[in-house]
């Protein structure tokens, strides 16, 4: 309708000047909130609405008012819908009547009763904090509207960017400047969306580099157990990972994605494999990857996958070391290998400085020794000795020593491999001697420390030596067995003596040793106190009822080697109801100086 634009302001003006006094109160002219403003506008636009509901409907209005109301309703519909073409005359009459009644032509649609809670005309919705946007001041509202406009603007620019990208044929051909601009726009967009709607836009969703990837979200089933409240970052990164893994994409961006996920969940078993395949297909140098791994390893000391990845890397890259005279390259024949080995060992030292018993690090170290042939590397033996010097009870170091000495191909049968507990004729006698001597020295430092005793026993078995050869050595720690002044500074010595005597056929002595272990010395093992700090490792050991039974009737000789013969201990007092001999004289003696603690203190 041509007269619409002219009529409206005029009508509004008239309305303001008093055709509807009830809505003309000053607070509504200067509304404090958007809801108030809406209410005001509604009333201005529908001057008869409140009266109509006061008087109970159209029928209650005066005839003039009723005519006005009808015309108004009619003309609004007519002009809105551009329907109902009227003959000229009727049209003229209609407009005349409207003009005379002075009602505004434009306004909010009249409502059949107020639909929204709190008698609101319109529901503006809530903002991210849950606040009713209708309760915003007009100032705040204007600001919000500005932000929304900005969102639209940024989206339009974003679409232009995508169009440009399609046109030039991909991201690679776009100017860096364009991409950077888009990045900045998306950052702003993400910020605005967060402010306006509390919507989080993930890091990847914001990055134009990832536009072509449709993330695959995790579907958590209904009966899912052990659900984890993943962080948004992890969930987003995973959804992108699943998408690129499905495409088998091997690219630098995927490498970065694996890094991000590994930092959040280093135990993710497939991402490591995926990373490995990316590294191999991108031909990334082992050095770079290892440098990166070092950082991750130090941050996740207990992780298992990291070490497996390192092994895979080495398996993959080892063949790149040139063979020497047709032989595989080892630290013995190749400086290159030796250099690499030393740099690896340098890093492993850092790891073991954090935790000298880290199982995965030791496992990898063994792998490395085998792979690179580090058997004769003086640094390797030297390092183990240093660790044992620092802590004579570091069983991991003892275990590694056994490995480098006795798994050394020069000292060990390989076909078939002989189990570690069995005699291997290939072990040179001088090696056995050397290791027996080493173990003995370490035992003397700390007689009650089980690690070197186990080692000694292992060396004897491997080297085919008899335990009885150790009798004299063990007797250092056992004095006047069975007598009143009995003194034992190492239960392990007594244990070995029992075995030695049994080996020699000295049944009674062996019996006595086992009995004393059971009654007393292996009930509790103890170190000695020194410097206000006492060391105590106290294996309650094994106290089988079978053993205690065997103590009463004389035990047949052959049992000495059976498991039952070793079961010594406390159950005698427990099962037989004997009180433990807490105040036993020799027990308190035994708690006096032994060399245990000096050793444990690292000299």
């Amino acid at each position: 309708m041509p007269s619409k634009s002219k009529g409206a302001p005029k009508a509004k003006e008239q309305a303001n000047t008093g055709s509807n006094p009830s809505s003309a109160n000053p607070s509504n002219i200067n509304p404090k909130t958007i809801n108030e403003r809406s209410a005001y506008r509604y009333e201005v636009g529908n001057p008869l609405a409140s009266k109509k509901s006061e008087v109970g409907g159209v029928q209650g209005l005066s005839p003039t008012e009723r005519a006005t109301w009808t015309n108004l309703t009619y003309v609004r519909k007519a002009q809105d819908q551009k329907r109902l073409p009227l003959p000229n005359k009727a049209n003229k009459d209609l407009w005349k009547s409207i003009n005379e009644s002075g009602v505004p032509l434009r306004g909010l649609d009249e409502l059949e009763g107020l639909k929204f809670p709190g008698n609101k005309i319109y529901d503006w919705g809530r903002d991210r904090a849950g606040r009713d946007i209708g309760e915003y001041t007009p100032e705040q509202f204007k600001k919000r509207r500005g932000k929304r406009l900005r969102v639209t603007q940024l989206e339009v620019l974003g679409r232009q960017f995508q169009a440009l990208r399609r046109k030039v044929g991909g991201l690679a051909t776009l100017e860096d400047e364009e991409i950077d601009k888009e990045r900045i726009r998306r950052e702003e967009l993400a910020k605005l969306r967060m402010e306006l709607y509390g919507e989080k836009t993930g890091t990847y969703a914001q990055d134009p580099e990832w536009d072509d990837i449709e993330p695959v979200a995790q579907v958590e089933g209904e009966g899912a157990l052990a659900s984890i409240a993943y962080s948004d970052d992890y969930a987003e990164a995973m959804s992108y990972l699943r998408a690129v893994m499905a495409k088998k994409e091997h690219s630098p961006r995927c490498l970065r994605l694996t890094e991000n996920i590994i930092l959040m969940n280093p135990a993710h078993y497939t991402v490591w494999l995926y990373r490995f395949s990316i590294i191999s297909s991108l031909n990334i140098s082992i050095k770079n990857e290892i440098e990166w791994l070092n950082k991750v390893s130090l941050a996740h000391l207990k992780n298992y996958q990291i070490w497996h990845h390192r092994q895979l890397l080495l398996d993959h890259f080892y063949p790149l070391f040139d063979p020497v005279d047709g032989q595989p390259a080892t630290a013995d024949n190749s400086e290159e290998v030796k250099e690499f080995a030393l740099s690896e060992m340098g890093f492993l030292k850092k790891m073991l400085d954090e935790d000298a018993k880290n199982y995965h690090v030791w496992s990898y170290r063994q792998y490395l020794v085998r792979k690179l042939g580090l058997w004769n590397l003086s640094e390797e033996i030297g390092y183990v000795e240093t660790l044992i010097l620092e802590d004579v009870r570091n069983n991991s170091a003892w275990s590694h020593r056994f490995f480098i000495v006795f798994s050394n191909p020069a000292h060990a049968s390989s076909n078939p491999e002989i189990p570690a507990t069995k005699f291997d004729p290939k072990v040179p006698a001088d090696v056995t001697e050397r290791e027996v001597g080493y173990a003995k020295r370490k035992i003397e430092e700390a007689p009650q420390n089980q690690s070197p005793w186990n080692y000694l026993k292992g060396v004897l078995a491997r080297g085919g030596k008899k335990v009885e050869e150790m009798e004299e050595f063990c007797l250092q720690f056992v004095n006047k067995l069975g007598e009143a002044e009995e003194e034992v500074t190492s239960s392990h010595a007594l244990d070995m003596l029992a075995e030695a005597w049994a080996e020699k056929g000295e049944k009674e002595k062996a019996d006595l040793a086992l009995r004393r272990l059971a009654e007393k010395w292996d009930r509790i093992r103890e170190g000695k106190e020194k410097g206000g700090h006492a060391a105590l490792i106290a294996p309650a050991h094994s106290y089988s009822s079978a053993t205690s039974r065997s103590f009463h009737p004389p035990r047949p000789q052959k049992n000495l080697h059976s498991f039952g013969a070793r079961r010594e201990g406390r159950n005698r007092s427990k099962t037989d109801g004997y009180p433990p001999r807490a105040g036993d004289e020799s027990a308190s003696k035994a708690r006096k100086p032994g060399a245990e603690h000096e050793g444990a203190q690292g000299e």
Partner: protein
Amino acid sequence: MPSPPPLDKKQHLKYWTRCLKSPLPHQYTGNDSSRLLLAFFMVGGIELLTCPSDLPGSDSPPLPSLITEPDRLALREWVLSLAHPSGAGFAGSPNMLPPPIFKTADDDYDPLTRTTVPNSPESANIAATFFALLILATSSSPSSTPTAFSRLNRRAILKWLKRLQRPDGSFGEIVSPHGIVCGGRDMRYCYLAASIRWILRDPEASPEEDSELDFNVPKLIEYISTSQTFDGGIGESGAHESHAGYAYCAVAALSLLDRPADLASSAKHESHALEKGIQDKEAFVKFCVSRQFAYLDPPSGDEEDEEDDEDGKWGDQDQDNFYLPKKLADLSLDESLTYIAFNGRCNKVADTCYTWWTGGALALLDKLDVLDSSKSATRAFLMDKTQHMVGGFGKFAGSPPDVYHSFLGLAFLATLDRTADDLPHFDEALCVSTATVERIVEARKSMLARGREVNAEKGMSAGLLDLAKLMANREGQLRAEKQQHATT
């Protein structure tokens, strides 16, 4: 000192309720790949606590299980949803599963290994597969047990398992898209492989089927038998440091390799594999009993270090909570043996789970009696020291409880002396209640019976088809003959 009162099962169930109902905090993100493991511990822990008592004289009704029938069904659907699209194994969590687009994609042919590789085979993980099978059995109800395994692709899982074995007999945890076995040479995978095999293998399999589906058992025994270390224990592999957890895995794997398929009772079979695989049994047992030591309380005021280190961590034991008395004179011999704890390696600290790994290994060797005299002091350690007031067990004395140690603490109590705490019979090889093993046997039986039926049907329909073809041929011949007659 009086023995601690029986386990407060109600309190422990409360702990499990919490685990079941609320999502784990985001700090558990590192366990995303092992959600089936966490889920199994929840289901298995609840099952142990709600089994009806079979002790003479006990007439108290069992505690109600927290898992309702609809929960069981939903749980089963969830577990099955984690199966690899090819049917070969399970993924550890929904996040590890290949995206749905793989579900329709064809398998890849790998020219290197000349095998057909299912798409993204690395999603299936050996540990996840073992725990999926255990959950399916544990959470089945009497009516659903026969169908607990009905939707498994048994053949695909066994074939995949076979591919996880290396030439040296050891197992990996996943197989790469190129058919490479990944994961360290690790005794745990050997154990998981032996368990999965026992659960799914057809005891009446023909030699042909075995050669297609069964892995190389003698090779695995050989692999384990070369792994014993100089001190009698067993490590992760080869010459690695001996460790109670790996030692258990080796023994349990061996015992499962020749265990009769229907042996669900707590009776032990005579295992030749075990005999052969543990070269020096005496030294092995000595290694196990050497894991025990007298646990001493830290002197008060020295606890800060402990607090710093152990919060929220589990699965390893490298921090030192190993308290040594300042003065030996402060201790009487009597007190020092009040608590007996277990460590995993020589000269390491006490940890709840090593009671189980050691006790379980000894039980499998039928040598549990060596712990008889220390039983009450060991139980006292768990009950007084690592049991938590909110229920469950922690890793160390005073640690907050976690699902792993809470389950394994129960496992140990059920193994050591189940009557003391009114726990059900426990199967040390599969680490579940004997009742669950019975379910596994039943579920396997009906799965195999159905498989045979299907095969028979296939066979029958093939026979019918042949017959029909034969008849059609004969008819054609007759018609041809007739026509010949007619023309001549």
